[in-house]
């Protein structure tokens, strides 16, 4: 098992958001997490990545035989966990190239591989850029500065392609994308699917899932997973909304 979450509880500013969440993910599986606003979807993504504004108050998370909650954000990344941000951050003056070369070499160091020099890195990055149909000057530009919303999301997927993580967590990567950008992002994700790599796709809508076709769909509500199923659950949610499932959950 790649990821096992047991009874995860977390709060921010004394407000309890995750209230005992359980989830198991095997290598190669794609899981979608859906749910209404405020259910805790982005909190789950941030807690897994190690954002320190969230406080974990209870629970266990095992990732690839590591106690995930015991690791710093950079250690989690080095061990193969990747978060594609809902709002990728702008970093003026730091070039994408310096950023990603540093990141790739940090991961390679963890894996006992030699660092890539500037030329090796350029070569390595070239076809990943083509994959996402990004402008070739991407590497020279400051990280996300002056990027459109779609470019920022594609830049995150580009980083994912470079870092080759074991677990990819996509936090509402589809929000704010037009149909062409959505297709490019979905293609990027699909091209990275493999028997070893797993995905958690956090989303509001079915449209990204139509391209990705997840193996499992979970409904997150009030800090817990209240229903799980196959891809057909996403269709059901799109047709009927969350109300019916929430009502069933509250009655149970």
């Amino acid at each position, binding site marked *: 098992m790649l990821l096992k979450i047991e009874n995860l509880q977390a709060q921010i500013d004394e407000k309890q958001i995750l209230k005992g969440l359980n989830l198991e993910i095997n290598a190669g599986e794609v899981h979608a997490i859906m749910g209404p606003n405020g259910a805790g979807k982005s909190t789950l993504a941030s807690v897994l*990545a*190690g954002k320190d504004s969230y406080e974990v108050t209870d629970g266990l998370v095992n990732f690839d035989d590591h106690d995930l909650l015991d690791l*710093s954000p*950079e250690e989690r990344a080095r061990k193969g966990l990747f978060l594609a941000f809902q709002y990728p951050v702008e*970093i003026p*003056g*730091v070039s994408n190239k310096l950023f990603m070369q540093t*990141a790739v070499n*940090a991961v390679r160091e963890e894996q006992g591989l030699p660092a890539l020099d500037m030329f090796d890195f350029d070569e390595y990055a070239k076809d990943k850029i083509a994959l996402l149909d990004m402008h070739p000057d991407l590497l020279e530009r400051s990280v996300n500065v002056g990027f459109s919303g779609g470019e920022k999301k594609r830049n995150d997927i580009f980083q994912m392609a470079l870092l080759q993580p074991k677990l990819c967590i996509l936090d509402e990567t589809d929000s704010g994308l037009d149909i062409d950008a959505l297709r490019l992002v979905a293609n990027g994700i699909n091209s990275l699917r493999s028997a070893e790599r797993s995905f958690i796709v956090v989303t509001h809508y079915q449209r990204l899932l139509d391209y990705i076709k997840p193996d499992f769909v979970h409904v997150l509500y009030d800090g817990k997973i209240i229903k799980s199923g196959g891809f057909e659950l996403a269709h059901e949610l799109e047709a009927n909304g969350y109300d019916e499932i929430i009502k069933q959950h509250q009655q149970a």
Partner: protein
Amino acid sequence: MSNKRTRKISPMATAAVEHYVGLSNSLNTSEVSSGVFAARQHAQSLLLQLAFPTQRDEQWQYTKLVQFVQNRFELPNLNAQKTTLSKDELEQFTPPYERIQLIFVDGVLNCDLSDDLSSLPNGLRIQSMRDELQNSTSVASWFSEDALVFSEPFGVLNTALFTDGFVLNVAENSAIELPVWVLHVQTQDNQISTLTNRVQLARNAELTLVQQFVSLSEVQACTNVVTSIEVANSARMRQVVLQQQAEASFYFHNQFVSQASNSDFNTFYAGMGSVLSRHQNHLSMDGEHIENSQNSACLARQKQVVDSRTHTLHNQEWGASRQLHKYVLADSAVGVFDGMIRVDRQAQKTDGQMDNKNLLLSNTAKMNSKPQLEIYADDVKCSHGSATGQINPDQIFYLQARGIPRSQAIEMITKAFLMEPVETINRSEVKNWVGKQLSNALLTGGYFSGGDK
């Protein structure tokens, strides 16, 4: 200094003034030309009358001179003709590009280490100020009683005590290919080096000037410089000033720049050293279609005070001025920025921009910023802004989430912040060198250890 009221001067300041007036008198021997003699006397009378500014003076509110006033800096030994700096010691400061070099040791030009001034490229003339004072009759005209130098307290002290400096002329239509590098090395404790420099670019001339201020060891010394720069019609001047003196030293530099029509002046200041440093540009745009750019990158930690000021006068039509000043402050350091763009009634179509951005690496560092506009023309485009903050934690987390350790993430973001104004340096070899000096100071200077080294 229009203040005619009698100032209350503390006993400490009185003692300091008497000390420096005494030093000034010892320089006013019978060998001095009458013009310089009179200028020094005038400076002495101003010193006695006004002493040194205190916190009650608005321009010195955040730049406290208490520590300076407590010292009694002595004059350098002007007769030490022999080099007190070996070629090996010089090596560590030498830039890795071809240049014309002038080396000053403790305020006096060292001829052994400097290039031969009699065989400079065509169109370039450089003299030491000491020689110029003996040979030139024009010197007296620099020090009329209304000269700008007397409007600044350290300009006054400069005139009272100056012993050397350089006079540099670039002839009409001459573009000097190599940068002129002027290094000032403090080697002696408790000395004051006082330098007066004159730079004149004739019509359509071009020059790159690099002035660097360093200390050989952890001395406590003072450097007080006045640099006057005249940029004639269509001339182009690029200047870089690097201040890297020992952490107990003092640095005062007043630059008086006047530009004529169609000229271009680009100056960059990097402030890294000294316990107290103050770098001031007084820039007067005295013609049409003038361009200039004044930028700085300043770093301070522990109890350093780093002060940088610009005073930009748009006096004629179609002038464009650009400014970007960045500070990184750690520990209990204090940063001071004061910038004024003044647009005269005649200066229509002025385009002036001034930006100051500051990054605080601790909760105890402090930035005092005062960008100002004074506009008397109606068809102008001017902007000014200032922003001070700490690193956004979202930026740090974003880098961490890609595997970059937190400490390295903070260093990358801080360095990128500081380097932005360096991009305005035109010549790539100089730009790369300055960038390296700044990044070394930042990454090895104890900025990220959160304490005393």
